Structures are given as C-alpha cells and as structure tokens.
C-alpha cells in the first residue's frame, strides 16, 4: 500500500539545554514521512525520544533544528496564529487517559471544547457534534454529563480519542494510548482507533512499547534508540526480518503469555547510555552483541536494505545475509 505524503520530517533534532556545557540530545537528526491515512508505529527504548518527536510534530515543543512539512506547508516556520489555525488538524491522544482530562469538566464539555475554540458553531451545535463523536467511539449519550473519574479507563481513553478526532484532524499522535489499559480494554481501544481511521482517513503516529499492538495497527514501523532513528520499514518486512541488532533484541525480548514457552534469551545487557551530550557513534554500541571498533567512529547512516526498508547499522548487510 502506498500513501500520498502528509507529513515530511527532515533532519529533526531537539536538544534540551541543561547548562552552558551540557544538553540532552533527545532527538538527533531524524527523517521520516507519514502518508495520508497511514499509521506509522514508533517504538524504542524508554527515553529514546519518541514522545519528543510526537510533541515536535505538533509543535507543542519547539524543534532545535530540522524541518517538518505538514500537508505541503512548513510547520517549523509557522507563526503562533498560523499554528492555532492548524491545531484542529493536528491532535494528540495521551498515555494516561484520566490525567489527560480536566477533572472538573464533564465529558461533553471536554469533547466540545475544541469545536468551541475552532469553529463558529453555536454551543448547541458543538454539543451535538461532540455527542455524535462520543457515540462513534462507543460511548453512549448517558455519559455526556459525567466527570472523568466516573468512567472506566477504557471509557476515559475513548473520551481522549473523541476529543482528538472531533475536529476531523489529518494527523493524530497517539502517545502510548493503551499502556495503562488491561488487555481487554486495550483490544477495545485498538478497535476504536482502527475503525476511526477507516471512517475518517486520519493518519496516526502510534507511539508504543507494546509490540503486539504496534504490529496490529501500523502500516510501517520506525525504531528509535537514544534519540536516533535506527530502523524503519513496512510492518510486514520488519516483523519478518530485523536489520538492526536493537530491533532484533527488542522483538526477541517480548514475553509470551504462555508459561510453557521458554523465556526468551535476554540478548542485550548493559546500561542505556546517557543522552547528555551524545557522542557521534552508534548509540547502541555499548550494548550491541556484535559491535566492532568501526561502530565508534561515527553514527552509521541509514542504509537502504531494499523494499523501502532502512537500517542504521554498519553490519546490517551481514546481519541480513545471515552471516552473523
């Protein structure tokens, strides 16, 4: 499946300054695209910069360098007013559904708010549209005047999704939307997300640690490590064959719910390097089971592994050939 491009990210970096001599390289020189109606899964180490990428895409934090093109327009240079006009098209769903909802507002108020802000519709029309959206994500009208604390976690997350989708956005960043839900609720929320994408043609950036969920929802998957993109490719290709040792480690570390299956070997040991003043080298080198001296010389570039599958590892060709 190919998608017309919606978002193009080129050489995006975000540095958080700590003091005169130190900064956190949260995101370093990352490029990727997201197509219209496509879901790009974003996985990676905790602290690898996934959330930062998502926030930069929405300009909720200012990128330090690089450009983001959204629907043909330059998002990085957009003024505050232009940005406000774009807000309804760029939305966000949070990890912790309850925390993301204002405890003092009813569900209806919360979902109607984006419409009140961005359209000239009457209060009644906004309410009606919000109720309609809530119904579409599977919440019945009786929930409309409830407060977030009165709902189950699954319902709360539906409210978060409804709030994000009510303005019919082009892109929604889903930052670990299912990580606080139990398996049954998770399945429900993934259903809702899939259904809404089919209905609205919205694109998702789906950030998650849950590889099963990522596999299910994403058309393509991008893998981050310590602020770098290390591998990106179609879900099918990536699941069949990982061209970067970190992706390999990631997929092999997944624990199966079946206790009779042997516990998968723990291939990576060692500490996650610090993101403070990152060096120009492969970020995985300290934990990589197959590292060689040259890995320390520079950050390996993204190499085309064929079939729109890219990996940033000097030994990727060997890995693919099965020579390792």
């Amino acid at each position, binding site marked *: 499946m190919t998608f017309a491009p919606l978002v193009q990210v080129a050489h995006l970096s975000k540095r958080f300054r700590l003091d005169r001599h130190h900064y956190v390289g949260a995101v370093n020189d990352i490029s990727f695209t997201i197509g219209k109606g496509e879901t790009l899964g974003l996985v990676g180490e905790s602290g690898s910069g996934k959330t930062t990428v998502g926030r930069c895409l929405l300009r909720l934090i200012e990128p330090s360098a690089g450009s983001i093109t959204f629907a043909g327009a330059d998002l990085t240079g957009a003024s505050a007013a232009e940005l406000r006009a774009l807000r309804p098209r760029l939305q966000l769903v*949070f990890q912790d559904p309850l925390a*993301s909802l204002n405890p003092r507002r009813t569900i209806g108020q919360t979902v109607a708010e984006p419409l009140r802000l961005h359209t000239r519709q009457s209060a009644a029309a906004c309410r009606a549209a919000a109720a309609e959206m809530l119904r579409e994500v*599977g919440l019945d009208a009786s929930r409309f005047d409830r407060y977030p604390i009165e709902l189950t976690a*699954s319902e709360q997350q539906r409210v978060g999704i409804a709030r994000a989708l009510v303005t019919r956005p082009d892109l929604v960043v889903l930052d670990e939307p299912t990580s606080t*839900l*139990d398996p049954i609720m998770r*399945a429900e929320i993934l259903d809702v997300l899939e259904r809404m994408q089919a209905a609205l043609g919205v694109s998702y950036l789906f950030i998650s640690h849950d590889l099963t969920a990522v596999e299910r929802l994403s058309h393509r998957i991008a893998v981050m490590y310590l602020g770098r993109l290390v591998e990106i490719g179609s879900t099918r290709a990536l699941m069949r064959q990982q061209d970067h040792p970190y992706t390999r480690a*990631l997929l092999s570390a997944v624990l199966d719910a079946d206790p*009779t299956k042997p516990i998968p070997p723990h291939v990576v040991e060692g500490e996650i390097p610090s993101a403070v003043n990152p060096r120009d080298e492969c970020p995985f080198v300290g934990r990589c089971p197959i590292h060689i001296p040259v890995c320390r010389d520079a950050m390996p570039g993204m190499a085309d592994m064929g079939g729109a599958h890219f990996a940033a590892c000097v030994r990727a060709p060997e890995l693919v050939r099965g020579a390792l």
Partner: protein
Amino acid sequence: MAFVASKGPSRRLHGVRRVWAGLSAGDRIVVLLFALIVSVAIAGPWLAPHPTMTADPAQRLLPPSLEHWLGTDDNGIDVFSRLLAAPRTDVTIALVATLLSVLVGAPLGVLAGLFESHPRRVLSLTGEGMLRLLDVLQAFPVFILAMVLVAIRGPGTENVILAVAFVNFPVFLRLVRSELLSLRQRPFAEAARAIGRSDLAAAFVHLLPNALPTVVVQLSVTVGFAVLLTAGLSFVGAGIRPPTPELGAMIAGGAKFMALGQWWVSLFPGLALGAIVFVCGLFGEVIGRALEPGASSAPRRRRAPPLAAAAAATNAPAADPQALLAVDRLSLIGDDPEAPLLETMSLSLRPGERLGIVGVAGAGKSLLLRTVLALPPPGTTVRGRVRFEGRDLETLPAAELRRLRGATLAAILPNAKAQLNPLVRIGDFMAAQIRAHVRCSEAEARRRAAKMLVAVGLTDPERRLDAYPHELSGGMAQRVCIAIALLHRPRLLVADEPTAGLDVTVQRQVLDLMLKLSKEQNVAQIVATRDLGIVAHYCDTVAVLEGGRLVEMGPVAAVLTAPSSAVTHRLIAASRGETA
C-alpha cells in the same frame, strides 16, 4: 465489539445533603461550629440581651452572674452582649480583606507561574521581579507592616481592610503560582494546549479551577488569620476604636483589669478570638476535602456474578505458619455495604515468593495492594486481617507502620511521575527518603541514591539526581521510583504495574533485578500487572480478580494453561491479540 459500561448508579457532587452525608462526625462538628460563628457574625448584635454600646457606670466591673453571664466591663456594659456583637466587625473586615487579597493574589499568581521560565526574556524577568518584590515585602513582620500601613493612611474600617488585604495577598500569589507550576505538568494542561488554547487561556480555564481546593483551604485559614490581625490592630489602637464592639479592642480594654482580678473582661473575648481562628482553620480543611472532584462519588464497582471457583478460592488455606504475609478474609467496604470493593479475600505469601495479580481494570488489583499496605482509600472500611511478619497491620501504631512502610515493606506504585514532587530534584527527594529511615549525612544519602539508580539501569546518576521529574522520560521516572522502593532492602515488595511504560528490553532488566532480589535476598513480591507475559515468566503463583473477588488462584503454569474462570480465558485470549 465488546463494550464494558459501568452500570453502577453514579452519584454526583451536587446537593448540600450529598456533601453532608459524606462528612465524618468530626467534620460535621467543625461545620456546625463554623455555621455558629457565621450566624453570630450576622445576627449577634440583634441577639444581645443588653445594650452593647451604652455605658452604665453603676454596673462597672461586675463579675459573672445570672444577670450578666460573663460579667460587665469598665463601662458597665454586659460582656456577653458585646461578645455577641463583636464578631460582626472582625469577621466582616477579615472576610472582605481576604476576598480582596485572593482577587488580587490569585490572578497575579497565575501570571507569575506562567511567566516563570517563559522563553520570552521580558516575561521571565517580570515573573522573577514579581517574586523578588514579594520576598522583600514578606521579609517585614506582617503585623508591623499592617500597622505602618494603617499609620500612613489613618485609622478607619476601609484602611484596616486594605492593610489586612495587602499583607495577605502574597500568600495567595505564591500559593496559586506553585499550584500552577505543578498543575502545568499534568497531561490535561498539555491537552489544553494541544487543542489550541493559548497558555494564558489554558491557565485560567483549566488550571486555576483545579487549584481551587487548595485556595479555598487557604482562604479559610486566612480569614481566621485576618480576624486575628484585625483584632491585633485594634488591640494596639491602630484599628477599630471603642465603643464599636470589637474583639481586639475589648481585650485591650480589659487587659489592665486582669492583674486586679477582674479577669472576665478580657478573658472571654480572648477565648472567642482563639476559637474563631481555630475553627476557620479546620473548616478550610473540611471544605478542601469536600471539593476534591469525585470526593463524594467513590468509584463504584459492579458486583461479579457468583462463581463456583470464587467460593473455592476465597476459602483457600490462610494459616501458613511460614507466611511472611497472610491476608485473612479481607474485605473492603465502600459506600455501599451491599457491594464491597473487595470481598473476603485470603492469600498468603512466603519469603521469596512472587505472586502475580491480574484482572481487568477495576477488578480491585490496586485496591488490594493498597489495603495490604494498610493504605486503604479514605472513606472505606477494612474487615478481616492482614498480618505481616506475624504482626497485624491494622492495629499497628501509625509510627510503627510508617517505619515499616518504605523500609521492610516497600511499594512501587503506578504513575511514577505523579509520586515525585514536581518542585523537588530527584536527588533531594531520594535523600529525604533515605534519611527518613537511616541516620546518615546528606552526602552519604546522595551516594546511596546514586548507587541505587545505577542498579535499576540508569546511567549518569549524578545528572539524574540533579534533574526535576519533568526532565525525565516516563520510563526513567518509573525506574527512579523502583530505585526508591529498593533503597532499604525490603522484605516484601508490593508493586503495581512496575514496568508499565518501559521498553521491553529495560522491562526485562527490571524484572531480572526483581527476580534476583527474590532469589538472593528472599524478597517476597506481589506484582499487579496487566501483562500476562510477566506473570507467565516472573511469578510463582497468580491470583485472578474480578469485581473485587478472587476468582482463581494457583501456580502460574496451572492457571495460565488451564484457566477455570471466564475472565482468565478472556484475558489470555486478549493477550494473544484475539479480539475479546
């Protein structure tokens, strides 16, 4: 698609009666006393049995009697009558002044919070300047400052009000500012920006209302304090002058007779003043509790269908002599005694044993853990017993329990970021935790904290110790919390979703660390998780909860391969990616 709706009747905060019903007996007394003060402030002057301003030299300084319950003062006026009339003056001045100070202080506090660390230099400097100015202002003793103000502007009710308001507005400014700084870290604040609210609008529309409980608590405390200040000003003659009935002036007027044995003239006004200040302070706390969203609508649970397996599981043997932890027919009763939040659960845990707790959301996993930690949610009643190392946690004195908790009995709770104080650096937070249990120097505490951070897989511990919570990613914050839990080599670790939000390779490292603790140091563990994979490979036994009941419990291999209950079946299916 299966859609689980909560069918429990949901009650909302509306209605005074609902709030009243949710109050404890002590709280009700406070509310009644406060109502009494308000009534006296309103109606006092009309209720007075004797004239309150007309002197009667014939009746001077009479001791308390049936005619004059609290005696008479040096003008021959009935003290009781004046006491009824006086609060109107003090309370009105205090109320108006406090309202004024909150109306000025709160918006300024919002601005100060917004301006602080604002990328625009002008604004951040303005915010900075505002706080410096306050520092200077607050360096003066409040009372002196108020006296100076009245001295400059001259006596008179408005000037007393202005002075009292002026010395109190910094309190609200600072309070709202710090509330705002912490509310700003909450995801819903970011959500407001994400839908396109400006910072300013988001602060007033979404954040300020959430600072309300704290402000209201402070409001009430401040009213009490303002009464004291007003009385103080009058006492030194800088406030309300006699003959207007006013507490401070009454105390002052009677003070010189104290030594002569005519104690009643100033003692009773003094007591009244103390009572007003005290009750105002307590009332604030009651209101604060009642204002918490959902305070009067505790989560309600659906009652699980009776299951054959449930009966079997709840009657599981409880008296294991080797048990480190023994939970015996534990129930947790909330609002509705008909639908307990937890129902007669029994389980036990030996040293080094790892118990996994699973179930759909709302099944009671976290409640069970909290109850085991003797931290049941407010407003609930615990039945049954929890014994830890042979001691009954319920009856343990609070101090003992505190020592136990955080040391031998450690907890890892979900939502790590929420537990860390947004205004305190990680290192200071951890050092305080350490020093609460062990006597050691600040430097030593810091060294230990750094060591623990390395143990949970964080690099660059020195820098992490200097970080504020918002500078950490979710996974790092979680690991910091795990490190805190492990600081004191606990015997039992109670963990609620300990690895949520961690990438699978780090998750494995944390789990391996926990496994090592159990194997090498015999640390028993209770782990609530929604990830059956963790249970399958890192736990010995598993307990399945549904609707507050234990529906199934047994060795992991048995339960996960041949589940006997429907929930377990569904959980396993959903974990495999099959749609429920």
